[in-house]
């Protein structure tokens, strides 16, 4: 059982929905980013998605792309991202960390070495945007063998025929992308999301978490009400990009988390 599985089991026992937050590792610099990360659990974050910077994030909007550029400009690397996770683990051994990014930096390091290093750093799961089920042999299967969860995105274009394929090697949770589009774009409508979540839950026992387009405590609550939890990324990263202080960022996160936990 990974920390992710344990966290969702605990939330289920408490009858609570999950709040998942995304930050880009090393944005705007290593120390600030680590300070924000360390403050997330106390602000109500149940699962941390830690972005791995990449020069060409083709599924992300400008907010996440700029965050990646800031991080890279400040010297962030895959190794420093793993170091950040390891530093976080020194004071928190329960909050799950999901590394989210693109395949090339991982492929470049070598899959086996990456999996060994990621496990040692306390990473619990992976979301790799450009690895669909058709490429499961690349990283998904080796990751599961190494004891890491491989979390898959399901989208509005994932129809019933395709859904089983997407769910087959997924573990930890399912991330439902509420819109066709990039991160930080249009707002999600709880009314549209509810039947989609039900459609996925009919085919899996895994928790279904919904992200993309959630920017306010109200939407966070509305979406969490119709799913097992909500993810917020761009709205938080926007504040970091505007140079807000660590406490200001964490206050904003607390509002979003409270929203999801009210659901």
């Amino acid at each position, binding site marked *: 059982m990974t920390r992710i599985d344990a966290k969702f089991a605990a939330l289920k026992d408490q009858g609570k929905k999950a709040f998942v937050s995304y930050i880009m590792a090393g944005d705007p610099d290593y120390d600030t980013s680590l300070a924000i990360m360390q403050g997330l659990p106390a602000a109500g974050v149940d699962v941390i998605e830690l972005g791995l*910077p*990449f*020069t*060409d*994030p*083709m*599924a992300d*909007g*400008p907010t996440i*792309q700029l965050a990646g*550029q800031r991080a*890279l400009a400040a010297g962030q*690397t*895959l*190794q420093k991202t793993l170091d950040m996770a390891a530093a976080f683990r020194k004071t928190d051994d329960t909050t799950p960390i999901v590394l989210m990014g*693109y*395949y*090339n*930096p*991982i*492929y*470049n*390091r070598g899959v086996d070495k990456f999996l060994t290093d990621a496990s040692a750093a306390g990473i619990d799961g992976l979301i790799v*945007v*450009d*690895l*669909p*089920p*058709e*490429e499961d042999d690349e990283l998904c299967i080796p990751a599961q063998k190494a004891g890491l969860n491989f979390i*898959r*995105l*399901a*989208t*509005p*274009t*994932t*129809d019933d025929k*395709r859904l089983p394929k*997407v769910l087959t090697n997924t573990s930890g949770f399912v991330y439902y*992308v509420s819109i*066709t*589009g*990039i991160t930080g*774009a249009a707002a999600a409508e709880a009314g549209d999301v509810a039947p989609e979540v039900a459609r996925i839950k009919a085919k899996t026992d895994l928790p279904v978490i919904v992200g993309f387009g959630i920017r306010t405590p109200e939407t966070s609550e509305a979406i969490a009400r119709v799913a097992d939890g909500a993810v917020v990324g761009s709205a938080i990263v926007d504040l970091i990009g505007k140079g807000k202080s660590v406490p200001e960022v964490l206050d904003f996160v607390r509002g979003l988390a409270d929203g999801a936990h009210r659901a």
Partner: protein
Amino acid sequence: MADDLFNSFMNGPDEKGRFGDFGGRFVSETLMPLILELQAEYEKAKTDPTFWAEMDDLWTHYVGRPSPLYYAERLTEHLGGAKIYLKRDELNHTGAHKINNVLGQIILARRMGKTRIIAETGAGQHGVATATVCAKFGLQCIVYMGAHDVERQAPNVFRMKLLGAEVVPVTSGRGTLKDAMNDALRDWVTNVRDTFYCIGTVAGPHPYPAMVRDFQAIIGKEAKEQILKAEGRLPDTIIAAIGGGSNAMGLFYPFLDDKDVRIIGVEAGGKGVDQKMEHCASLTGGRPGVLHGNRTYLLQDDDGQILEGYSISAGLDYPGIGPEHSWLHDVGRAEYVAITDAEALEAFQLLCQTEGIIPALEPSHALAHVIKIAPDLPRDHLVVMNLCGRGDKDIFTVAKALGTDMSGLSG
């Protein structure tokens, strides 16, 4: 026969879209169903005689195919060695090979009921070709172009606008061709129902590399027939320039199993391949990685971050290369070399002076390699080089590089 098939270089890609370890489908889940749909439609079209009849008709009457295979007599004499033939794809409508592929993809888009066409472009040749064919069929056309390229390729931007296309300057990332491709993919992921992404080269997720190759293979098929007619035998060497590699793949593919034909791809060496970041030679100076839906050789740093390429030729200015080239490189069926800006500029001028043909800067790279090897080859050695684009678009760049003030040339 079974042995021949087993040893063929023409059987790729496999069902996973792989050429050896290269290629594949590295895209987000949102795009995956679209790519599978495209693959199914393309498989249908490929064996449908009505599809190819429509292509042939347009190639003949709209593009002006077949393009001539021209014996460059004065260039041959000047170099004093191999006999040099130029495949004149610069004489196509819109002035480059790009339209061969665009026609195929747009006919496919129409068969799929798509009404909105998006494309990425670097120098603007693929954008112009896409805008042209969209105008012909009355389709909405949006072209993503790096803001930097919009500035340095103003005539092509105006052409696209005249043809009714919307040109979107891309400022994300560093505003180059790879960023234009990122933004086109972002558009596609957002507008999944009505939009067809018309990729301009033999890269991207499967089935694009194979599909674009198949549409461009008309170049090699014609060249083969033409050289057999002219010389009664196959060429000894075939040469083409490579950015993404579509004109080269188009020339090479029909010759892959003719084992006595030497195949050479020419990458953009920019200011020299030893100087980091100042070239676009993915095979010569890069290593395998994953970008834009496929695994292929890429220019990247130690951390797997993608580097910007540099070349005087905007059409070769891309940090990757089509996956089939990566495979041909690794199995040794084709050779790949790099040519610098300076060498390409010299070749550009030599063709103007010896043959009265102004070549684009892209094929000028291929020509520069011909100039290097031809003098040492025997006079009965036949070289076929793909002259894939004309150079009108490049005269301002060339003038600047040669230190010529264009404003002083009038009268």
